[in-house]
């Protein structure tokens, strides 16, 4: 686990904050001094003013895409864990299915998105599906990797106790796999947002992806920058949620 002291060190935080402020300041100066920069990239002050002035719509887009991303991540997690259970109970089925799941990732998401919309229609279900599709694989590979690395001796201890499979999963497989699982979740969290946004490019009534798509077709720099910022904040929030969940596991996990 990363040494959190390094991340929370005041000097590091100050350096990071200074860089962020410098970037924002540079952007503001450029945005206000150059017409083309203003029209293409807006400026921080204009973007924030736009968000405040359109808070209702911006908030709705944010919440909608957030909901799609969270649901997508939940579906991805459930599927990955279910497949992990299949690997434990029926290793042969797991071995046969795994290459097929790898193949599902070969098709680029942007190629799949229009077809998904055809199948699911323009509603949120297609977005949740795409979000789950892009997010499940890192969780799955890490869970499978975790399961495969459970020491055989640990399983043999349970065998000698004639422990039921559910207890083996609960007390050996799951604790052992937590590292791997959360490593996958940390990767999947921002990916789930990407999946939802890309899906919205192909037709959405509301959402961050729709805002970005419209702003790509029109000269609406504030809408574009606020959409990009919304996507970044959403990714950060969902990532933070994963870290919070990790934290709740207990000292046996985060003190190791």
């Amino acid at each position: 686990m990363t040494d959190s002291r390094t991340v929370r060190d005041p000097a590091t935080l100050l350096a990071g904050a200074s860089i962020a402020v410098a970037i924002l300041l540079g952007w503001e100066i450029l945005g206000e001094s150059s017409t083309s920069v203003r029209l293409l990239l807006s400026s921080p002050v204009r973007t924030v003013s736009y968000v405040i002035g359109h808070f209702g719509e911006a908030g709705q887009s944010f919440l909608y895409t957030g909901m799609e991303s969270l649901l997508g991540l939940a579906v991805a997690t459930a599927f990955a864990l279910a497949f992990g259970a299949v690997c434990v109970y029926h290793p042969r089925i797991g071995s046969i299915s795994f290459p097929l799941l790898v193949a599902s990732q070969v098709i680029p998401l942007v190629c799949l998105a229009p077809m998904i919309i055809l199948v699911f229609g323009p509603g949120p279900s297609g977005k949740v599906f795409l979000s789950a599709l892009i997010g499940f694989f890192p969780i799955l590979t890490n869970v499978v990797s975790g399961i495969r690395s459970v020491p055989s001796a640990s399983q043999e201890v349970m065998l000698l106790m004639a422990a039921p499979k559910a207890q083996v999963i609960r007390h050996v497989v799951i604790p052992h796999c937590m590292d791997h699982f959360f490593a996958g979740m940390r990767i999947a969290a921002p990916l789930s947002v990407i999946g939802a946004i890309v899906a919205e490019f192909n037709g959405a009534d509301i959402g961050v992806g729709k805002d970005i798509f419209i702003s790509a077709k029109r000269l609406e720099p504030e809408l574009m920058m606020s959409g990009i910022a919304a996507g970044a904040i959403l990714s950060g929030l969902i990532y933070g949620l994963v870290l919070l969940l990790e934290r709740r596991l207990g000292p046996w996990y985060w003190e190791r």
Partner: protein
Amino acid sequence: MPAVELRQEWFPNANFAGEVSAAKRFAGAEKIQLKVVPGAEDVDPIKVVLSKGADFGVVGGDLLVAAVAKGAPLVAIGVANVKSPTCFLVKSNSGIKSPADFVGKRVGILAGTNTERVYQLMMKRAGIDRAKIKEVQVPFELQTFVLGQYDVRPAFIYDEPVSLEQQNIAYEVIDPAKWGVHFTGTVYFTRRDVLDTKRSVAQALVTTLVKGWTFTIANPDASFSDLMAAYPTLKKDRERRSLQLALPYFSGENNKPLTASADTWRAMIGGLEEIGVIAPHSVQVEQVWEPSLVNHAYAQ
């Protein structure tokens, strides 16, 4: 000879015919090398030209007006489609004949395109409350309409109808002009500083395009051959039919390609003010339309 790039907004299609013929047959005489650069779904020629990725672009006239209203130093130098090809398609058996029939139905919206503005103005002029309509953001894929995911499809008269014909799907066309919506279609535009510093190049481009489109209207078969030679992967039958439907839209005012009157522009500016895309009196015709280059081309 200066190389001139014209940044299109969409993939190669029959509407490139005049430009392709212009590049092949007339650019040399005007002492320029003209290259037509295709666009894509996510390409915005306005941003490309603003960022100086290209000096000249092709974009919907309404989008250009909206950009100028925001202070973009851009100006139209020729009007490709003096009448917008935007229309609304419904299946023949849908029973939908007019905007009033949209009430209670699902209407597809192509977000970010000029069809969206045309739709908004059409509904306003028809006096229809849009809250009573289920507006659905749809992708460019026509199959979503064919599959019946929504009832009304925004389209260009020389594009989607051709695809429907090829799939033997019967359709009806709702023309926004009947409800007083008179927008232009695509226009050729550049930055103000290009007119100041490279006016001769801009003039050469406009003259080339005038000749190109004049040739295409008079010799559609030859122009079509130019198009197929430039883009051999285009589907011949489809694009031939598309060009056939498109030619009237490229004829210009008084059968002079690339021309448009100030009144045409005022009508569109007024329409955009009416639906709140631009603030009232925020754009004057002179800010967005520079007809002198086209006039000079015809004077030569």
